[in-house]
């Protein structure tokens, strides 16, 4: 699924990073616990989280992830957006809850990492 399709499905907005027209992901992992994210061996997934601080971006960086979807209508602090930009991470915000965003994306074909 392309990032643009994902953004449209979750009524999201891209706050940082550059994406190609056909760029996309196949897998997702949803968590507010960063240590749980760090246990996932693969790197080809989008992180869905409600954790609105720099550590979610740091975690994405260490996990070698490119996409973070911040849910629950949070406004990320500027330092979080700046760090995402510096790290080449695409930060998307959505007004939906984690359950709703995950459900919509799963229903549209995105897969869980396990």
């Amino acid at each position, binding site marked *: 699924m392309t990032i643009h399709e994902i953004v449209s499905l979750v009524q999201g907005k891209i706050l940082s990073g550059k994406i190609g027209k056909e760029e996309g992901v196949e897998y997702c992992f949803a968590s507010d616990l*960063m*240590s749980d994210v*760090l246990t996932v061996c693969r790197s080809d997934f989008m992180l869905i989280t409600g954790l609105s*601080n720099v*550590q979610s971006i740091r975690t994405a*960086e260490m996990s*070698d992830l490119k996409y973070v979807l911040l849910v629950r209508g949070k406004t990320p602090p500027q330092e979080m957006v700046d760090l995402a930009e510096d790290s080449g991470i695409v930060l998307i915000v959505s007004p939906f809850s984690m359950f709703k965003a995950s459900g919509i994306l799963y229903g549209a074909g995105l897969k869980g990492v396990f």
Partner: protein
Amino acid sequence: MDLSFNIQGGDFTSAGTASSQVRRTLKELGVDASVIKRVVVALYEAEVNIVAHAYKGEIVAQISPERVFLKLTDEGPGIPDIEKAMTPGYSTASQEVREMGFGAGMGLPNICKNADVFNLHSVPNKGTTVEITIQIS
């Protein structure tokens, strides 16, 4: 190549800066992406542990063509029961740490999982030393 960093306890805004610099260095050296991920995930967990639990600490990263050796030394409360601390899900993290997305009790087990060699030495009321070795080749 040796890199060293001073870590301040409680400074969550900077937590991960050292791990990020080590990651950048390993990338520049052309190290395999799966090895880099193991190194930085282990290091990041250990770095966050210093920020979350200790007063201050130091990280030394020694990078050679064969391996990455990481030594993290902190001054802090130490770990009274290492066996318990190694149990997945067990955590003594404060509410503040949990609000930062950590304290799930997965840190030490995750470091252990990613390391080829993992040593943990702790003296209660004094501090903790963590040594992590990950083979490159």
